[in-house]
Structure formats: C-alpha cells, structure tokens
C-alpha cells in the first residue's frame, strides 16, 4: 500500500457537505479528546472550528510543552546548487527563469560550512534544484562528506530519489529528509508542474515513504500553501504524516506549512492563506498528532514567528539564505524565494531565550 490509496479514498470526498454537518458541540468535544481520528482532524480544519482557535491554541500549547518541553530546535538551509530541469510555475529556480546558475565547488562549500558553523548551528539542511546532471547523488554525497566535519545532523531537500539512493546518502551521513508534495491535488499538480521529471506525481508522493524504508531517521513533509484550497491541502498533509507515523514508527515525522513567497517569475498564489488560517492548520496538526515535529521557516515574518513559539512549533530555521553560496560568497545568485525573517542565529537565539524557551543547536549525534 502507498499513501496514494489514502489519497484516492478522500479525493472525491464531499468536503462541503461534511463541513455543513459539523456542529459546534462536535468541535468542542474533539478539542477535548485525547485521540482524534481523520475526520475529527478535518473538523478542526473547518471554517466552523476557526471560532475555537483560542481553545485549540491552549490545548496545542499544553501538548507541545508536555512532549517537547521549553525548547526550539534550530537549523539553517544551505543551497548547494540551483540548476533545475523542472518548470514549476511558483519556483524561482524554474528552468525557464533567466537567472544565474551555480553549483558550489568543494572549496566554496567548505567556506559556507565554516561560516555557518561559526554561528554554533549543528543541524544543516542542504538543498539543490532537480538536475541529475549538475547535482547528482554522487555530488550530494561528496558534499555530505565535507559537511560531516562541521555538523552533527545533515538533512537533504533535493529531488525525489530511489530507495537505494536514500540508503547511499544515509550511509554517507544523511539522517533527515525534507520533501514537500507542493500540492496534493493531483490535477492541479499536473497544471503547475509543466515540464520535467517532477511531473511524476506518484514518484514524489512516495518519496517520503521510500526514505522511511531506507532507514532515514527523520522525514519532514508539507504542502506549499497557496496552490489549492488550504483546508484540503492541510488535511492531506496531516493524513500523509499520520500514515507515515503509523507505518514507520521508528522514523521521526515532521510537517511544515510553507506559504508561497515572492520569487523570480510572475506566478501569483491561487489561494490566499492568512495568518489566522495558518495558525489553525498548525494547531489542528498538533491536536491530531501530539508528537509530530512542526517546522517553521524564515519564509514567515519575524513578528509572526515569534508569536508561534510555544504554540506548537518545534523547529525553526535561522540565519537563512536561499541563494547558492548565500552564507559566505560575495558574488551572489538569485534566491529560490525571498526570505522574510532575516535575523541572525544569535538574534534568534536571544529572542527565543527571552520568550522563556531554549534554542537547541544540537539534537543529534552522528553515531
């Protein structure tokens, strides 16, 4: 079985009819439950549940504190290359965008690693565009071999790989995978991914599962919010995470809720996801899956991020750059998207402390 079967189960589900039958009492009782099922999770994502966002926040805060404590894990992204063969309408690295293309050499990578490690960060997320020519698995592996000298935990956010390729990278020292389905709605997916291997919906959808099978320690999934009805997209993201958590209990599953940010190219989000909706999604995730990791990137505004500390978020990026060589090099390229919270790692840590939380730089040890 694949998550695709689960997707098909709900693909033609009459969401509107379901929403219209929800009562206030049902929502209140779901918020108070210890264990929530799939449709109860959907209730928490409904428009009607928005009224109870404060109650959901109280519960989410309690659960997060209980299971994760007063800590926020920190990491930063490191872009290895921006070559890409795909044509994803919402992405700055789109093959049809006329931007400078670059891939880090070993020396440049050392420099980036050096600069980042001086901030004290121990967890790194490496990214590439999709190009098996420029950013082959071998290239990624060589980069991992460099980074392992500087960092305790290395995650990858690259094009979907085969199980054996994940195994190869795990062997080299990778312990985490981040991969977003972008949009779970299969028809819309086809419309937004015009060209390139990324058009293969199923291969991407099953990538997190292949990583679990390969023995990846942590897997982070998500939908790019703004591409379709966010309630449905959040619902499918939650179902996907739940599916992985149940089937691969020894893998730590996390979710992200990336909202589309300005980037090179003219694509405008089809759906607006405002702050209130964003928070509702996050709280629904927490109530549905009390021990799931929730990752928040610098796509979001500093002030908004600050307010989410304690509410459910467990992991945040800091000192980010979405450009290849963005941490150390002076000759810069276009970023994948514009980041919003531009604070340094130090500023971020100080702020987290001021909120009564501990910024955790290291939460894994390569063994």
């Amino acid at each position, binding site marked *: 079985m694949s998550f695709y079967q689960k997707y098909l189960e709900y693909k033609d589900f009459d969401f509107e009819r379901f929403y219209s039958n929800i009562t206030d009492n049902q929502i209140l009782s779901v918020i108070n439950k210890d264990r929530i099922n799939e449709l109860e999770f959907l209730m928490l994502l409904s428009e009607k549940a928005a009224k109870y966002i404060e109650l959901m926040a109280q519960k989410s805060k309690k659960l997060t*504190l*209980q*299971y*994760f*404590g*007063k*800590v926020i894990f920190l990491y930063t992204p490191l872009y290895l290359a921006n070559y890409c063969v795909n044509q994803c309408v919402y992405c700055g690295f789109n093959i049809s965008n006329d931007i400078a293309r670059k891939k880090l050499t070993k020396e440049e990578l050392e420099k980036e690693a050096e600069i980042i490690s001086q901030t*004290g960060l*121990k967890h790194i997320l490496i990214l590439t565009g999709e190009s098996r020519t420029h950013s082959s698995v071998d290239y990624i592996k060589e980069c991992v071999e460099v980074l392992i000298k500087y960092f305790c935990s290395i995650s990858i956010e690259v094009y979907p790989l085969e199980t054996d390729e994940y195994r190869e990278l795990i062997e080299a020292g990778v312990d985490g995978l981040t991969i977003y389905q972008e949009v779970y709605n299969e028809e819309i997916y086809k419309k937004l991914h015009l060209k390139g291997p990324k058009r293969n919906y199923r291969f991407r959808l099953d990538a997190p599962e292949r990583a679990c099978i390969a023995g990846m*320690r942590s897997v982070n999934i998500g939908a790019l919010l703004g591409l379709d009805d966010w309630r449905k997209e959040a619902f499918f993201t939650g179902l996907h995470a739940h599916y992985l*958590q*149940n089937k691969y*209990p*020894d*893998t*730590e*599953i996390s979710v992200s809720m990336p909202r589309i940010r300005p980037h090179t190219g003219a694509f405008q989000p089809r759906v607006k996801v405002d702050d209130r909706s964003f928070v509702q999604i996050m709280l629904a995730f927490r109530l549905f899956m009390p*021990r799931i990791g929730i990752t928040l990137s610098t796509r979001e505004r500093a002030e908004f991020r600050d307010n989410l500390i304690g509410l459910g978020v467990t992991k945040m990026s800091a000192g980010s750059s979405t450009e290849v060589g963005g941490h150390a090099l002076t000759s810069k390229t276009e970023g994948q998207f514009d980041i919003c919270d531009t604070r340094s790692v130090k500023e971020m840590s100080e702020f987290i*402390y001021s909120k*009564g*939380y*501990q*910024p*955790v*730089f*290291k*939460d*894994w*040890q390569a*063994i």
Partner: protein
Amino acid sequence: MIIGGKELTSRLFIGTGKFASNAIIPEVVKRSGAQVVTVALRRMDFDSKEENMLNHIPQDCILMTNTSGARNADEAVRIARIARAAGCGNWIKIEIVTDNKYLLPDNYETIKATEILAKEGFVVLPYMSPDLIVARNLRDAGAAAVMPLGAPIGTNKGLKTKELVKIMIDEIDLPIIVDAGLGRPSEAAEAMEMGAAAVLVNTAIATSDDPVSMGEAFGLAVIAGRKAFLAGAPAVKDFAEASSPLTGFLRS
C-alpha cells in the same frame, strides 16, 4: 542505596531535556537535592561553552548519559561508547525507542544493549516497559538497576503501571527506579511508599512555571515517601473494626 559502587544519598534522579534554559539546572539540582542527572548524548554540544549542557551539571553530581535517539541495541551501544570516550563517565541510561508516537521503550533491544554494555564495564540503568520477566533478563544481563516507566514519557499521568512495578519491586533484588510519567510530587511519593528505590523526573520539573520550586517539591516528596516506606505504612482496612465482632463468641 549503592549503585555502581557509589553510595547515593538522594533518591531523586532528574532529566535535563526540557528546560527553558540550561543555566537553571544547577539551582534545580541544588534545591531538589538530586545527585544523579541524566543528559542525552544527542544534546551534548561539546563545541559550545554556553549551550553545552555539561557545563551546567554540578561537579558533585553523577552524570548518567542516556541513549535517547537510539533505535536498536547497536545504536545504543555506540552512543554509550562515544559518551565514555568523550569523558562522560560510565553510567548509562539505556533508552531505545522504536515508536515515536508513544515513545515507549523496546524491551527486547534494551536487554541486548544491557548485556553488551554491562560486559564492557558500564553501570547500566535500562529504561523499560514494566514486565517481570524482562526485569529478570535485565538483571541477568548485568543491569545495575531497572527503570520501569510509570506512564508514557511526558504524559504526567502518574503511576499507571503500579501493579506491574510493585511486582518488580517484590521480586527483583535490584533497585527499581520509576522513570517517566510522574507528573506530581504526590505521585513520586506514592512510588517511593510502594518501595521504589528512586524516581527519575524531567517533564514535570522542567515544564513547571517554577522549575526550582517544583524540583524542591519532588525532592521533599521522595524523602517523605521513602520514610513512609521504611516506617511501614499501616495496612488499609476494608471493614471497620466492629465493637461487637462477628467472632466475639470465640471466647477461648
């Protein structure tokens, strides 16, 4: 109580994973009286002065490294060896979790890791799901103490596994330390009254609004519970003692 050749005066062990700041740990240790402190190797940041938890553990404490993050015996063994090589001593809490939903320990892998590490000279304190047979296996594998959970970790639900832990206390001649799930000092006292050798607490102290006071409260509760256990709590009576007893006719 002697564990691993060390005489312990405090029967409260504390965990360090969830505090708002590591800087508060020395005060929590001091006021709670805790003597054994457990730290996850995964959180030890040897390169950082401020962020390295180890710099906040008082010198007179016994550091018990835990293997949090290990998914099987092999990983737990490797973590223990890294910790010892890094100068963290030879006390090791084995924590092997293959279920990230409930964070329940894998007893089978735990027995395997205990056997290997005990042979290598570690003082091994395995964290486990309470089960008499597993506890016997752990004892035979060389564990220095056995640490059953009171309730799933982080739940603050108290001594939900009471009957099973009680059987272990009665049957196993090793210190039985209740680890995980205790949410209130009264629950720690309950475990101690029942005859637990010690308790290990993290979440309830670290996530309290005032961890120092909560640590102290747990310290006092553990002392009270232990005293009560030693004094021998009076038996609970199901029936009142009647002034005209049913067997009063038996005069001789």
